[in-house]
């Protein structure tokens, strides 16, 4: 009885969330901690099925709207991301 793949496997597929959660800035866009504290592997896996929550440039919490198709995330300082 197959029970299917789990989050880590699902995360390996491209085309859902963004790429690395720390791409483009010093902060992890999922947990909001410093990118330098580690590879944020768990965050990267989770981001396959989540939009970003923190601005990777300034660590502000972003206003995120998830839609049936896609999402948008707005940082008051650094503008809007779409996925």
């Amino acid at each position: 009885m197959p029970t299917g793949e789990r989050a880590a496997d699902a995360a390996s597929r491209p085309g859902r969330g963004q790429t690395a959660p720390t791409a483009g800035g010093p902060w992890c866009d999922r947990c909001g901690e410093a990118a330098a504290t580690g590879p944020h592997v768990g965050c990267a896996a989770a981001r396959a099925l989540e939009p970003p929550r923190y601005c990777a440039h300034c660590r502000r919490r972003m206003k995120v709207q998830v839609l049936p198709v896609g999402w948008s995330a707005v940082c008051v300082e650094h503008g809007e991301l779409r996925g």
Partner: protein
Amino acid sequence: MPEILDQARTQVLENGVGLDEAGVLAVLNLPDEHLPAALQLAHEVRMRWCGPEVEVEGIVSLKTGGCPEDCHFCSQSGLFTSPVRSVWLDIPSLVKAAKQTAETGATEFCIVAAVRGPDARLMKQMREGVAAIKAEVDIQVAASLGMLTQEQVDELVEMGVHRYNHNLETCRSYFPNVVTTHSWEERWETLRMVRESGMEVCCGGILGLGETVEQRAEFAAQLAELDPHEVPLNFLNPRPGTPLGDRPVVEGKDALRAIAAFRLAMPRTILRYAGGREITLGDLGTRDGLLGGINAVIVGNYLTTLGRPATDDLKLLDDLKMPVKALSATL
């Protein structure tokens, strides 16, 4: 063959009478080697009493975050340290989301708000939003706005909202462990008003909140007593910052056992895959559930998290030769 499956074959498959709480518990406790037989029987029950069609739905958050309630699984509560911020969706974006949902072949579009219950601002947004969707998009509109007053129920009926979602989330005995800012009975009262209004009742919950197997059976029995038109079945996706953020996800086989058990408790309901299936079941498990009692899916993204691409689910349904329910069949 376990005795409970023999009993279910006669009682549920042949006579259309759902299993009671003890029967559901027996299914939930089946050893792994009998899980394929339970899923096969649940699939036969679904095909016999519901047919091969699958109802496809999209959901959207009209008002995200900042909720005053403390549902321990929810990242939208304003009482936790979740990173989800409050945001409202404007009407043009709402209509666009409805159009995108309709383009997938979905017949249902559910508008959701993270609130205890709607206030005047939210009801105004709903009036304008539902009217705009109905003017431009050929899709059924459902709503999920928390607890309602009788006046709000009547107003939603006037707007043309055909189905109302209000999940009990878990069984009555476990509910106080999950929510303390309102009661299970308050939710039940809203469901009673919705049913009496003529709107279709959509009521399900989340598995994996820490409830026991016995409480899962209790929940299925309580839902069967409510007899909702639709039961959305979620599996906990632990959210950072919430009290349940560190809970383990439901094991895939336990999730499949629950799907079969809930179908055998409610042979005629629309049993919908909702949130959490991606991490609990993955792609293969999603297929197993559709062959084990599920006859509806939420396609695309959820309220604060992302789902499988709608095209993946639609291809799977095509592979399984399960036709998407047409809009004309819902009217």
